[in-house]
């Protein structure tokens, strides 16, 4: 396989377990075992260079944890993450950690918390440049920061301001400029627009798209909002309780969702132009991640669940059309095919 054909990002069987046990003495006295929380449990995916993979799912299903695993904020409990053919986690620990960090950057959800309130915009954006020794000369730094600001639609004069002097959308652009400073190839965006209102969201999404077009960036895009996901992504992964339950091309996923959970999610999207029409909310409550149901985690809420679903954990299998689904019902054909897929 030559370099061009190999996907830029390859996550294989990534897992992250948090130890949320009570203190040792309590456990001993109350004879309780360690409590482990499987935040991410065996997630695998690839992203081609210049493409966008979106991850969707309910709150707490492990999207952010995946993001943090990819940028090295967490070390995985299991599995591996290859970036451009190189084991990224080994690299993060090794001698060329800097080189790897330069190539992977992240944009955070909260535009208000992700900028140090005491720093000027110029310093915020210049920090990665200085840190990686890309530029040290003052004038050159200032020029580069100006360029970066322009590239996200801000003016170089904004350098001298503090974050609180900007609106939410502008701040998010500053974060993007900071992420772009090291000219990364891969950007992890963890709900970059969910704190913004629609008109500002449009501005930010447009900039991200423009950048991708111009610089060939690769994105992992995390969001709750399916409409946004549909707009930005090439492929979509649906997560439920730490596992990937469906992974497909955008078109296929939206037109022919296979997994019962994906369908429920799509049904829950409010339809803009059907005013007054009730939508079908996802039924039931999200299970406790500390004590997930056995077998398929979705089985308590699934209309197609049977004995097997309650016992055996489904694997992510290709359905032959490029969609990968983890569902016994789909595998056994118990789910009726939506029209578009037929």
């Amino acid at each position, binding site marked *: 396989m030559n370099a061009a054909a190999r996907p830029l990002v390859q996550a294989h069987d990534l897992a992250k377990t948090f130890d949320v046990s009570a203190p040792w003495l309590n456990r001993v006295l109350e004879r309780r075992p360690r409590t482990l929380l499987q935040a991410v449990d065996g997630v695998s995916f690839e992203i081609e260079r210049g493409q966008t993979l979106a991850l969707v799912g309910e709150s707490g299903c492990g999207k952010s944890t995946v993001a943090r695993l990819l940028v090295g904020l967490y070390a995985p409990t299991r599995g591996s993450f290859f970036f451009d053919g190189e084991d990224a986690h080994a690299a993060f620990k090794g001698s060329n950690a800097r080189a790897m*960090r330069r190539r992977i950057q*992240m944009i*955070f959800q909260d535009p208000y*918390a*992700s900028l*140090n309130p005491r720093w000027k915009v110029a310093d915020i954006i210049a*920090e990665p440049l200085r*840190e990686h020794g890309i530029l040290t000369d003052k004038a050159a730094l200032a020029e580069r920061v100006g360029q970066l600001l322009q590239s996200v639609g801000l003016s170089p004069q904004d350098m001298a301001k503090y974050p609180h002097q900007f609106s939410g959308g502008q701040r998010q652009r500053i974060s993007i400029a900071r992420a772009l400073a090291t000219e990364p190839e891969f950007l992890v965006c963890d709900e970059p627009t969910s704190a913004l209102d629609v008109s500002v969201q449009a501005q930010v999404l447009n900039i991200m798209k423009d950048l991708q077009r111009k610089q060939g960036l690769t994105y992992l895009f995390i969001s709750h909002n399916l409409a946004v996901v549909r707009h930005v992504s090439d492929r979509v992964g649906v997560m439920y309780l730490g596992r990937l339950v469906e992974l497909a091309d955008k078109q296929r996923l939206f037109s022919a969702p296979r997994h019962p959970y994906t369908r429920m999610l799509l049904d829950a999207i409010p339809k803009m132009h059907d005013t007054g029409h009730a939508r079908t909310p996802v039924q039931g409550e999200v299970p406790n991640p500390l004590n997930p149901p056995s077998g398929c985690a979705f089985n308590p809420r699934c209309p197609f669940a049977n004995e097997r679903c309650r016992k055996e954990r489904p694997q992510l299998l290709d359905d032959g059309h490029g969609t990968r689904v983890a569902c016994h019902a789909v595998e056994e054909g118990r789910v009726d095919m939506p029209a578009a897929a037929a």
Partner: protein
Amino acid sequence: MMHTLSRWYDSDVAHSFRTSPVAIVAAIIALVCVVCALFAGWVAPHNPFDLSTLELGDARLPPAWIEGGTTKYLLGTDDQGRDILSALIYGARISLVVGLASVVLSVVVGVGLGLWAGFAGGWVDGVLMRLCDVMLSFPAILIALLIAGVGRAVFPNAPDSLAFGVLILSISLTGWVQYARTVRGSTLVERNKEYVQAARVTGVAPLRIMRRHVLPNVLGPVMVLATIQVATAIITEATLSFLGVGAPPTSPSLGTLIRVGNDYLFSGEWWITVFPGVMLVLIALSVNLLGDWLRDALNPRLR
């Protein structure tokens, strides 16, 4: 410089300062005290620390406006014939130095350890916080009492400056705990903020993150605590002096003056106690008021 000045003048904190008469009065008092203390040599009419000028015959003269007083000693003299006014000015200098130095020391120690504990977590955090518990279960005066006693005993021939060092040390040794706890608390909050994570993703070294990102953002409450602690430290020094381990008697601090004056409450020579007491209250009050005002002014939610 002009620029920063005008920006400061324009800022909300400065505005709230200008509109708060209490803060202005407090600041003026504090300023007068500091100036007097800094330039004690020029401001004070006599040098109370120069023993050869003391005139035992002039002991316990009342203030100038009372019968028997002379204008040579505006506020009267104490039992050694020291001019009270000069002693106040020089004493305030010592008290301020002790107060400020011990606060600076405890801030440095406390903030450092607090940052470390909050950032490192794990056993470092555990050990440091248990240490805080131990310190907390040792009442402040007790520690100061013991340490000051020890210091005096270990360096009996120490010059006065060393005695002050011991005093400052013993006060700061009890003071740092508060800072450590506060800073650790805010560090725990701050280090999970996204801007710190952004720095980590960029690959900034932990020490650098701590210093450049976290530290400036946890200093707010520290400043407020510190202003209040200056006053507390001055009073602690006075109390230590009451218990017999304060500043040396030949170069008395405000606390020592009050302690000595304490014996004159019933004898009718009230000025020996009252003036140092008033001075101490003024200093403590102005510093506290400033701290108070700062706390309200720095809290955007109260504006």
